[in-house]
């Protein structure tokens, strides 16, 4: 390790020396940005546009893999080699903010004409907030809602314009739609033993009035009991326990599940694959009039506190935020902004689905924010899995998760 680090630092020193030699003629400020966006996604394209302005700031891009973002960022920061700007998955934001690895942007945001907190959905904004200060800017957002197959609704004698509104209705509807002889499950979702499982379950617990700090409260136990009922009665496939959201929704598209809980990233594939009429609805709530909630996904922009050019880096973020208007049109991602309407796409089915998701986003809540989120999430996943496999009762499983979360100090 020691030798390897020396080698790396020598290599880096050589590389930076040659870079310094090259850029000596131009007096541009050079920023480094890390993100996992591919060439058809926002970051590299926005950087290209930004660099083309030639305003004395040049951004250099490095693409990361999803699983590497946090560990690379941590390693880079602890060895003093952090980039200036990074995009970070929202549940991981607090971890960096709480350790002051990210720059406090509160004052710059207050003076900014482009980035205004009131323009953002409350969920994403909360995820960049730590200790009542802003440590980042939401980049994009997504959430989950209910997809349902209108043809199967009709076949089962249900009104295709009346999707289930409450948990009771959801279970009853799923029962009516389930048809083992035709290989049709009533509903599909994901209870996988990774972040996806937490992502899907937490909204249910939150609708029941729980938070991750009170994960064994009555509402959360009821939520998990409903999940368990759906699996025990085979209204959802037992593979729900090991299947990702993307794979689960594929069974909906194939007509083997009559409803699906997933996010807007499914829309394009569904338009292509689903050979039936489908619709979307907000996530059902515990009882009529109960509070709504939903999951909140996607990444945030953040500036590392080690940057030598905080002003220039913030300028870049302002530029990126100014491009939120065309984000859906250009990249198919939803901006985290409540002030920007999603422009019509010309496809009525897509537009109505997007409208559902934008409505659902108003209730989206971040996971955490907590610097110990990965461990908290793991405790929740364990509770989901041990109760759904029948090894523990929902209440006991969530009690155990609660004890674990309290011991972590979340």
């Amino acid at each position, binding site marked *: *390790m*020691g*030798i*390897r680090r020396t080698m790396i630092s020598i290599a880096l020193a050589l590389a930076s020396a040659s870079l310094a030699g090259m850029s000596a003629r131009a007096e541009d400020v050079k920023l480094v940005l890390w993100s996992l966006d591919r060439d058809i996604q926002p970051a590299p394209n926005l950087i290209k546009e930004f660099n083309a302005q030639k305003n004395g700031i040049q951004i250099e891009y490095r693409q990361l893999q999803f*699983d590497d973002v*946090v*560990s690379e960022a*941590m*390693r880079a*920061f*602890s*060895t*003093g080699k952090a980039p200036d700007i990074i995009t970070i998955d929202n549940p991981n934001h607090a*971890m960096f903010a709480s*350790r002051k*690895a990210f720059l406090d942007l509160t004052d710059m945001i207050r003076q900014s004409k482009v980035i205004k907190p009131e323009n953002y959905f409350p969920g994403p904004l909360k995820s960049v907030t730590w200790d009542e200060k802003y440590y980042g800017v939401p980049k994009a957002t997504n959430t989950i809602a209910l997809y349902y197959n209108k043809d199967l609704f009709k076949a089962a004698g249900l009104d295709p314009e009346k999707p289930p509104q409450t948990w009771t209705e959801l279970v009853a509807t799923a029962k009516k739609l389930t048809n083992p002889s035709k*290989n049709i*499950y009533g509903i599909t979702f994901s209870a*996988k*033993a*990774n972040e996806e499982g937490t992502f899907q379950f937490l909204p249910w617990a939150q609708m029941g009035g729980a938070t991750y700090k009170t994960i064994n409260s009555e509402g959360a136990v009821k939520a998990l009991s409903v999940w368990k009922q759906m699996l025990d009665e085979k209204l959802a*496939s*037992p*593979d*729900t*326990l*090991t299947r990702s959201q993307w794979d689960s929704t594929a*069974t909906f598209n194939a007509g*083997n599940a009559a409803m699906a809980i997933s996010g807007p990233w499914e829309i394009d594939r569904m338009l292509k694959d689903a050979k039936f009429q489908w619709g979307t609805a907000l996530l059902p709530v515990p009882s009529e009039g109960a509070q709504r909630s939903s999951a909140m996904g996607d990444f945030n922009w953040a500036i590392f506190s080690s940057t030598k050019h905080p002003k220039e880096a913030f300028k870049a973020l302002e530029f990126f935020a100014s491009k939120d208007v065309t984000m859906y049109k250009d990249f198919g991602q939803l901006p985290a902004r409540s002030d920007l309407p999603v422009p019509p796409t010309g496809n009525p089915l897509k537009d109505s689905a997007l409208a559902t998701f934008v409505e659902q986003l108003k209730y989206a809540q971040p996971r955490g924010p907590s610097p110990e989120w*990965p*461990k908290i999430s*793991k405790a929740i996943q*364990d509770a989901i*899995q*041990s109760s*759904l*496999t029948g*090894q523990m009762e929902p209440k006991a499983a969530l009690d*155990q998760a609660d004890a674990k979360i309290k011991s972590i100090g979340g």
Partner: protein
Amino acid sequence: MKRVFSSITDGRGFDLVLVGVPFTFLLALSGLPLLYNILMSFQEVDMFSLGSVIRPFVGFKNYVDLFTEPETISILRNTIVFVVGSITGQFLVGFALALFFWINFPGASWLRGLFLVSWVMPGLVVGAIWNWILSGDFGVLNFFLQQTGLMSGNIFWRSDPNFSLWAVILANIWLGTSFNMILLATGLAAIPADLYEAAEMDGANAWQRFWTITLPMMRSTIGAIIALGLIFTLQQFDLFAAITDGGPNNSSNVAQYWAWDLSFRQYDFGKGATISVIMTVFVMFAATVYVRSTRHEVRG
């Protein structure tokens, strides 16, 4: 000066250089990381102290914490089941295939070569394919078992806690069989044919020849292959990531996957390192077996 130089080109110095180069290499790339790993298992390693070597020393806290977690015992048991199950399966099927191709029918060597394709495939690809085969509702395996009348209902190989570990073992056996077969085939080829001729003249039947010639002559190969198998199965990670993710409820979680999960998903590097240390002890045991069995080989 000249003496030193001549010693290096031809003499004791030359020997030292020859030993020194691989030794430095081993020390730098295996020894130091290993020691660093042991050090980390006694420290509280936080994501932000990842870059420094001096970190809060916590003694055996990581070890104690690990063994008080409810899932630890079942994960260690899973690891043993996985290792023993995989090696047994890989070895038996591999040996059977090696013996089968040893008959040397037309095209045998070609076919044997083709078997290596499974070994060449990346684990994640193998995992994705087995994922489809083992899927509960529309999996090929369930379809096959039902069509042949072996069972009536669907088995959820990946999601039933009673089967999930075996699902990964099944995939791993498929993945490792061809490697076993090739090594065993070379072992078989090295047995002198006259031994069999002599035995045949003395009236030994096929079964006796197998027990008294083939198996004893293969002893070192078998020892080596089982030791290598232990290392390869303890390394197996991709299949878990692709098929079950260690779930449901840790029923298919094993030490190596757990170490990764703790280090890179929960960012608890100290505990991840602790599991690695425990695994290192197992692997050292395997290495001893391996070294001992190959030592025999030299004597022939």
